[in-house]
């Protein structure tokens, strides 16, 4: 599982970097609705994955590593609004996200590490201050 996830991560990071998603201007202009690249990438990725997941479930796919495929679906909760608003603010400010910052670090751009440090701090603060101790 470790090796496979390392491989999947490598492909994903390579694609993020090669497709221009580490470029602040691309994300920023996307959010200004002046550049469609980001939306085309997300849209085509979702289209491919959605059809694939639908087929796998329809044919009762058994995964090689973890048994019968069970796709987790979560019901709507207030946290999906509150958390998303704060996330959206961070995304707008930095033009960055948890995977893109990691790919940036790999590309030798120190700013990626700074965003990653911020993300770790954000998760840490949430876990310590808000989350129940038991989780």
């Amino acid at each position, binding site marked *: 599982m470790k090796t496979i996830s390392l491989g999947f991560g490598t492909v994903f990071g390579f694609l993020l970097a090669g497709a221009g998603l580490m470029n602040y201007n691309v994300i920023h202009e996307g959010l200004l609705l002046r550049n469609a690249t980001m939306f085309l990438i997300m849209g085509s990725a979702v*289209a491919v994955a959605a059809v694939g997941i639908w087929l796998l479930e329809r044919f009762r796919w058994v995964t090689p590593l973890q048994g019968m495929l069970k796709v987790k679906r979560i019901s709507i909760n207030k946290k999906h609004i509150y958390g998303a608003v*704060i996330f959206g603010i961070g*995304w*707008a400010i930095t033009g960055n996200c948890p*995977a893109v910052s990691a790919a940036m670090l790999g590309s030798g751009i120190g*700013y990626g590490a700074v965003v990653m440090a911020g993300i770790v701090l954000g998760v840490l603060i949430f876990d310590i201050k808000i989350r129940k101790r038991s989780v």
Partner: protein
Amino acid sequence: MFPIPWYVAGPLMGLVVLATYAVMNRSLGALGSYAQIVDFLRRKPVKEIWRIWYLVGVILGGAGAAWLFGVPAEVASYGKLGELLGNPALLTLLLLGGGCIGFGARWMGGCTSGHGLCGVSARSPGSLVATATFMMTAIAVTLLIHEITGGLL
């Protein structure tokens, strides 16, 4: 134009998402890796070490792309934001913005990949709401930044 055009990168990312379900029976997401790192920092048991390996992979992938295609100066200098701000202000903003990303993503239980790609592909109601919300918020805040900076950003 970028080294990998959107119509190649997007579908291939979709296949990575799909393969994670098909092979590991898990949903892919970068946020989970950070959650594991935080558990480690807090000396709690790290339940999903594979997620940290996934993030290491993303870093390696970024390194591979940089090695193969090089890094455009615009990307290395953080684009227009880097142009506008000196390093002290830029670093502070990135740390604070990163904090919002981490805090918000942990609260909603996913990020651009976990909710936006995986959850939406799986038609998960919570992910659809989260993705619509963070997209709309980010667009609204970006338009606001554009106004405040008089069009510089």
